[in-house]
């Protein structure tokens, strides 16, 4: 953990603390995602029925397994904040990097706003249950964002330690629900034989369900943002990321199994809090309390991880002058990207105050999807420019190029699925990024010092 380092030219430099371990990386990735198990994934049931949702769960699970493997390999060589933005900068080029940076900031900031909205809505629900109708959720939305921003501002170690504790609780809540549903005696509590039906809208319904299958895993790629603060990027990032995707595959499958065994697809497809509803149907009050706290913790952990990741992506863009350098500052005591954290607070609050949870989440998912499409191309170029053995890798993913090709193919199918349900949103998001790209090329790129962006001591790429 270096307080301040001095380079060969005797220039004082400030750096982030390297204090994180694989458990923090796991907490960052799983923490961002797990709220999707508590709510959101079930919209896939409305599109494809129970079996359609299971196909979406596993097909999108395959997509994210490819994401996790690719991310683990590339990030184990790039010990820098910024995640996929930094990868794009080194491997593809400035315009791609700018776009990927924007995808990351938009995806995480919007997801953070959605998480805060969920906390506010849960408080309103508790108030209604205690006889106080119409509680304004806004003070609780702002408190969630303000408290988590304060935590992030004060240091990454405490931020992600808190995330580890509350994420683990939320994961154990899902396990408790599974155990409480008496899975060893099918038919006693879980009624799959009565509730599972054929595909209600055929295979086109299954394709449409894929978009909502992303809720099970959206955000696991966020582990990369911790690369500059882990003690060893080569070891911690692959361990935390692969451990994270395995956790999510288990959690997603258990979630589907318990929910579809308790609720008919017509109800499940539009439920707001399906896991809490499942606990209510089982009728165990302790389980209900655990699932309520689990839902609350999952939303808070997700918002916490999103603040961490969005701030690091924004900070990295500032450090490379893709955005004003002012944002590239590190706090001299807490060693956090403090100005990036502050800058994103009003943006998250503004998104949250719109109250448009659906639109906010759709924008977040589409920004993530654009990022995954980039990752498949990125991986192909990475192996071509720096073949195995040329640079040290902390993790080498197997079967290359199959995961990259599978990822690209699955992303194309999900674009089609998204177009079916949210065509206008997809086109408007594309238009937003095209306009932003034009601004970057025409106005911003002149401020970028090309040589200063590349400080990683990598060998010259093959063919250059």
């Amino acid at each position: 953990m270096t307080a301040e380092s001095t380079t060969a030219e005797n220039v004082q430099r400030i750096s982030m603390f390297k204090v994180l371990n694989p458990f923090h990386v796991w907490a960052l990735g799983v923490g961002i995602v797990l709220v999707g198990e508590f709510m959101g994934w079930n919209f896939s049931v409305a599109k494809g029925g129970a079996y359609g949702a299971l196909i979406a769960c596993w097909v999108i699970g395959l997509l994210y397994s490819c994401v996790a493997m690719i991310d683990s390999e590339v990030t184990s060589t790039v010990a820098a904040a910024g995640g996929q933005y930094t990868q794009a900068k080194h491997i593809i080029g400035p315009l791609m990097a700018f776009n990927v940076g924007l995808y990351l900031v938009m995806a995480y900031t919007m997801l953070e706003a959605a998480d805060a909205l969920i906390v506010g809505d849960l408080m309103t629900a508790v108030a209604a249950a205690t006889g106080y109708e119409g509680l304004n959720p806004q003070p609780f939305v702002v408190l969630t964002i303000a408290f988590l921003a304060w935590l992030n501002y004060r240091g990454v170690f405490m931020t992600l330690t808190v995330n580890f504790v509350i994420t683990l609780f939320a994961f154990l809540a899902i396990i408790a629900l599974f155990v409480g549903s008496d899975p060893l005696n099918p038919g006693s509590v879980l009624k799959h034989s009565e509730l599972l039906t054929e595909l209600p809208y055929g295979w086109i319904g299954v394709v449409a369900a894929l978009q909502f299958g992303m809720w099970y895993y959206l955000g696991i790629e966020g582990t990369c943002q911790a690369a500059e603060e882990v003690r060893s990027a080569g070891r911690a990032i692959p361990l935390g990321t692969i451990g994270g995707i395995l956790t999510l595959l288990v959690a997603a499958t258990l979630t589907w199994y318990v929910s579809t065994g308790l609720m008919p697809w017509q109800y499940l497809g539009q439920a707001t809090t399906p896991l809490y509803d499942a606990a209510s149907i089982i009728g165990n009050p302790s389980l209900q309390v655990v699932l309520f706290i689990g839902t609350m913790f999952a939303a808070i952990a997700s918002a916490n991880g999103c603040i961490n990741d969005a701030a690091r992506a924004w900070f990295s863009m500032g450090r490379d002058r893709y955005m004003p350098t002012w944002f590239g500052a590190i706090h001299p005591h807490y060693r956090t990207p403090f100005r990036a954290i502050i800058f994103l607070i009003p943006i998250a609050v503004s998104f949250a105050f719109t109250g448009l949870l659906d639109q906010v989440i759709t924008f977040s998912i589409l920004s993530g999807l654009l990022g995954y499409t980039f990752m498949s191309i990125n991986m192909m170029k990475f192996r071509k420019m720096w073949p195995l053995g040329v640079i040290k890798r902390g993790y080498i993913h197997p079967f290359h190029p199959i995961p990259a090709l599978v990822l690209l193919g699955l992303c194309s199918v999900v674009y089609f699925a998204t177009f079916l349900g949210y065509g206008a949103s997809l086109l408007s998001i594309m238009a937003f990024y095209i306009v932003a790209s034009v601004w970057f090329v025409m106005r911003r790129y002149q401020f970028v010092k090309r040589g200063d962006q590349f400080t990683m001591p990598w060998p010259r790429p093959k063919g250059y």
Partner: protein
Amino acid sequence: MIWWDILSYAAWIISGLLLLWILADAISVSREFDEELLVSSREGADELLEQIKKEEGVR
């Protein structure tokens, strides 16, 4: 119920205090420290890079 009204006001007040603290600290840090130092960080390095340097040194 008055309890929820109190809780709502408390949430606004705590949020305001936290955001004010963050803002005040950021301003004081920006005044106290040189801007060049605050924006002086470079992309990180870990033990893999150290290993590469050592190997290159051996060659």
